């Protein structure tokens, strides 16, 4: 942070975009509206005509929807990683970016949560996933990884949302004190009447530390549990103990890339350069380089294990991914996740706006293809050669994929409009407090 910043300046700068977000914001909302309309049409078609409008055919019944579900859960990792783990390790670079990253997490998990409902076709019966008492003896199997997933995602969403909201309360109170009329009343209700008393801060700081400590194992566990959706099955290409760390590294890799994709334009648009600068983005890029390295190692290990296991079915899937019909998916994955991010090893690239922005987008494309590569290519090339198939998504599935991005950006843009994108109180904590001693020294 700049040394010249004052507490009052922080309030002014961070709150400015809340009341006048600018024309670019409205332009982006227009695009989001178009995406939502097209996606809603596609989903509507599927609700009316059934899952037949998707590209599913035997033996591939997990496709774009599950790919997109895993993609968004992965995106949802970076926010809590930045807000909880970096809070406990006292990393200074988290302060400027953690609020928007946390918001990204919540909205990414909200987006992911749509996909089990979309994927089952009869979305109105998605509540069957939850363990509720009923008279039909439809009790869930708690030994199933799909059930674990319901618990993992809902716990992650709840804890992340609480953590996010608790972090927001003092800042919402600051916004309340800068507004009037109905707006003041609304922010007043959301701030829960927070006043910043010594008693409030005393318990708040204790609780905040506990939330961070509780959220930390969740960050590492959620994508491990998601990976068991695959690894617990005996499908070749899925049945691997490597999956949990491999998925967690991939999730942090894609999540941090998405933070860069979102925060770079947000910083420019809302003129927040005094709070978020290249230094923050470079740290995010370095985190991507580290987790990207783990991911590349995991890709190599997967192939080694498949070859060394001497299991013909396993090896056949891995060979097919490279030279079979899905070669282009594998190619996109390697190009976007292993080759292009190497550009960030050059300081010049990882400290330039375009270098950061473009590579982060490429990583996100690559990580979607990685999940598609794991899911579709394994199912399409299972044990029985007679059942091998080639699954491609239909325009309905692509429309729903677009819908997911529009839905996610809708929430993110609304957040940027109505909530402080930078944590006001925490930014002030990093500044030197106003001291009479300093004032007197300056006067001399």
């Amino acid at each position, binding site marked *: 942070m700049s040394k010249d910043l*004052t*507490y*009052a300046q922080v*309030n002014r700068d961070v709150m400015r975009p809340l009341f006048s977000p600018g024309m670019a914001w409205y332009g982006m909302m227009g695009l989001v509206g178009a995406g939502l309309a097209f996606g809603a049409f596609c989903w509507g078609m599927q609700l009316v005509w059934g899952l037949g409008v998707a590209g599913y055919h035997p033996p591939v019944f997990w496709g774009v929807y599950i790919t997109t579900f895993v993609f968004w859960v992965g995106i949802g990792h970076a926010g809590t990683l930045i807000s909880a783990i970096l809070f406990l390790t006292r990393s200074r670079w988290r302060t400027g970016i953690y609020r928007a990253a946390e918001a990204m997490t919540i909205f990414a998990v909200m987006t992911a949560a749509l996909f089990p409902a979309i994927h089952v076709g009869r979305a109105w019966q998605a509540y069957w996933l939850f*363990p509720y008492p009923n008279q039909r003896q439809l*009790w*869930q199997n*708690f*030994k199933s990884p799909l*059930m*674990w997933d319901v*618990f*993992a995602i809902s*716990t992650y969403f*709840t*804890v992340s949302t*609480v*953590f996010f909201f*608790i972090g927001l*309360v*003092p800042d919402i109170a*600051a916004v*309340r*004190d*800068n507004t009037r009329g109905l707006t003041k009343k609304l922010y007043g209700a959301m701030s*829960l*009447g*927070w*006043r*910043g*008393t*010594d*008693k*409030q*801060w*005393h*318990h*708040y*700081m*204790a*609780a905040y530390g*506990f*939330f961070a400590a*509780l*959220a930390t*194992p*969740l960050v590492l*566990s959620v994508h491990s*549990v998601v990976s*068991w959706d695959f690894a617990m099955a005996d499908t070749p290409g899925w049945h691997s103990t490597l999956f949990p760390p491999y998925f967690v590294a991939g999730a942090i890799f894609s999540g941090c890339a998405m933070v860069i994709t979102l925060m770079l334009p947000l910083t420019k648009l809302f003129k927040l350069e005094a709070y978020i600068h290249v230094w923050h983005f470079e740290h995010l890029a370095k985190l991507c380089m580290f987790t990207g390295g783990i991911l590349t190692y995991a890709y190599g290990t997967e192939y080694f294990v498949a070859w060394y296991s001497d299991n013909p079915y396993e090896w056949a899937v891995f060979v097919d991914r490279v030279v079979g019909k899905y070669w282009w998916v594998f190619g996109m994955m390697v190009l976007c996740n292993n080759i292009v991010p190497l550009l960030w090893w050059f300081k010049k690239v990882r400290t330039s706006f375009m270098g950061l922005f473009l590579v982060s987008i490429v990583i996100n494309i690559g990580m979607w293809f990685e999940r598609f590569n794991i899911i579709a290519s394994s199912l399409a090339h299972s044990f029985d050669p007679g059942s091998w198939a080639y699954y491609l998504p239909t325009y309905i599935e692509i429309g729903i994929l677009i819908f997911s991005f529009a839905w996610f950006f809708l929430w993110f843009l609304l957040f940027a409009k109505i909530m402080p994108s930078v944590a006001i*109180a*925490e930014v*002030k*904590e990093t500044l030197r*407090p*106003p*001291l*009479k*001693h300093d*004032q007197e020294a300056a006067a001399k």
Partner: protein
Amino acid sequence: MSAHALAATGTPVKAVYKHLDSLLQGIHDLHKAGFRDFTVLSPIPRHEIEEIMYGQQEPSPVRWFTLTGGILGGSMVFSLASLTHSNWPMIIPGGKPLVSIPPFLVITFEGTILWASMFTLFALLYFCGLPATKLPKETEDPRFSNDCFGIVFERTGAHAEKIAHILQNSGAVEVTGGGTHG
């Protein structure tokens, strides 16, 4: 000096500080004069305020709620899974026991974290008095969420003037109530 028990009478007193060191001086002077029943307001948490106000006291009791929630949540969710499988047994090939620890540990872990978080949230709301509806009106000053610190006495008994005097001498830029303005 022994602490003054302030009767629920007297004018409320509010002091506004521009500087943290002046605020700390004010708190120190009040403690020295035996006044402890007041509220400090700050736009950010400062460990100096925490130390001077709570230095001799136990850490926040929120931690016991977190622990209780975690233990309760883990037990509840493990019981849910075990009782469900015992009451509606699914015969799974391979001779696996109905109540099987490793697969149940996953949701037990999730239940532990979820309940610990919920208990922490409720403890936070309870101890912070949120939603806050009964705080003194003097605390409702927009400067306290911006760039100023404050000390508020809701009741001053017969000491209003003395308190106002201490606050003013410690460097407050504004003291209201207690017969002092400015």
